[in-house]
């Protein structure tokens, strides 16, 4: 139990996907102009990452390793993830326009977010079992969502600040992210195993 908690704290805070692992940065920069968008994206990513962690665990355990096909890992992982995400999007769009507006519209963004491949690959690298894979995916996505929302809050405030012309927009966003990463270094060294 304690192991799982540590695993999750590690994935969410200490080795935060965005600020430490450097995964999913394009979404991080793209969807954080508004808190609402960031929240939606966070929820959608949490869903996809959890599902894809489980799926790829199955793929790895039942197809790739038994047949010595690990060289196909990257290809099969990303293929399955992309297709599943696209399929989910279609299903949500059809069955619930409301859900589509809150979650579904974010799904296409997720395929081009490298955390959906990065986290499954990390799962493999760290030899996670089924439960660990799922929790790791889930917690990483929570960490991702947290940073997304926090950063969106900061950017909403920056949008109202008198930032010098040279830095307004993306440059100051990166500098803010830099200071956020600096703050997160406070968590470094928390042992998670």
């Amino acid at each position, binding site marked *: 139990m304690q192991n799982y908690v540590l695993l999750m704290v590690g994935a969410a805070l200490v080795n935060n996907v965005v600020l430490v692992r450097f995964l999913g940065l394009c979404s991080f920069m793209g969807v954080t102009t508004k808190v609402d968008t960031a929240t939606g994206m966070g929820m959608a990513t949490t869903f996809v990452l959890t599902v894809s962690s489980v799926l790829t665990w199955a793929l790895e355990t039942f197809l790739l390793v038994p047949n010595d096909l690990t060289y196909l890992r990257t290809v099969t992982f990303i293929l399955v993830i992309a297709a599943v995400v696209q399929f989910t999007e279609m299903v949500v769009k059809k069955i619930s326009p409301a859900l589509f507006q809150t979650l579904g519209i974010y799904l296409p963004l997720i395929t081009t977010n490298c955390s959906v491949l990065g986290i499954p690959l990390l799962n493999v690298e760290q030899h996670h079992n089924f439960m660990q894979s799922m929790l790791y995916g889930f917690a990483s996505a929570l960490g991702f969502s947290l940073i997304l929302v926090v950063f969106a809050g900061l950017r909403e405030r920056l949008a109202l600040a008198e*930032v010098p012309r040279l830095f307004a927009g993306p440059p100051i966003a990166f500098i803010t992210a830099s200071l956020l990463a600096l703050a997160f270094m406070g968590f470094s060294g928390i042992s998670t195993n």
Partner: protein
Amino acid sequence: MSQFIVRSGPFTHAPTSVRATMGLVLVALLPATAFNLWLFGWPALFMFLATLIFCLLAEAGCLILAKKPLMPSLGDGSVALTGWLLAMSLPPWAPWWICLLGAIFAVVLAKHLFGGLGQNVFNPAMVGRVALLVSFPLQMTAFVSARPLGSAAAPGFGQSLGMIFGHTPWPDQVSAASALGYVKTELSRGVPVTQSMHHLPDLMDMALGLHPGSFGETSALLLLLGGLLLLARRVITWHIPTAVMGSLFVLATLFHAVDPGRYAGGLFHLLSGATFLGAFFIATDYVTSPVTKKGQLVYGCGVGGLTWLIRTFAGYPEGMAFAVLLMNALTPIIDHHFRPRAFGRTPQGDPLPLKDRT
């Protein structure tokens, strides 16, 4: 009359100003600063002045580049305060280039790239300190034990000048670990907290400030004095300091009760590190903390809790600066969620329902 008719009312204003506010904070910092100048001697004075001057120069440089007038901003005391607080959070004998880089991190990076006073989202002094700590862990954890000015062990004027601005080596045997650092190192080699406590100054000395630490953080009592002045003059309110110290104390005491060998006690956490400096002077920075009282309580608890977490579990022995920056990042979200309830409206912003009158 012509100049102000373009403005709507009110036509009377409270006798407040940014300058007066900042001035009061500077005054409140004086006792602790003076005491620590005495405690750490000439090198500390040079370090302090260097930091202050570099910060003022950095501000002036930024203002010139931004083509803004110099005086109102330089004179309102905010950058002096940033420099002062930065100096107070540096090791007392830090060399000049640490001061310079700190000033650049604090004033240029954390303040002026965001647009100057009031626009920054992170506490400039703490950005300066943390960037230095991360970049120069060695120099930033080189503390000294007290050598009061005038005592035999205190370095002389010329020697001190050399230590801060040149390459004069430190006198032997002055370097010392801070209390938090010592406990953490001992713990990492398996020495329980209960045992390492015996090698630390007693709580009275800790409260008075007679222990190694950053330049301005050691004297809890004098900082408290300054804090009370700020409270009395209503520059700050009780919410943030109480929340910071309360949450830190409660967490530390609880865990200490469960496992005294692993976790240091509440009083120790209060009196060591930058707890008082942080609670009264740093976490309270207007610009980077929430504007509502409820928000401030949440923010303060966050700072206290994270400080404890980082001190107890993470790689760095002291967590106040990180905790402040982390909560700075959360401030917009906190502000968003803890807006006061508007008159005649529900917390969600809808008009209150009309009650049936009977």
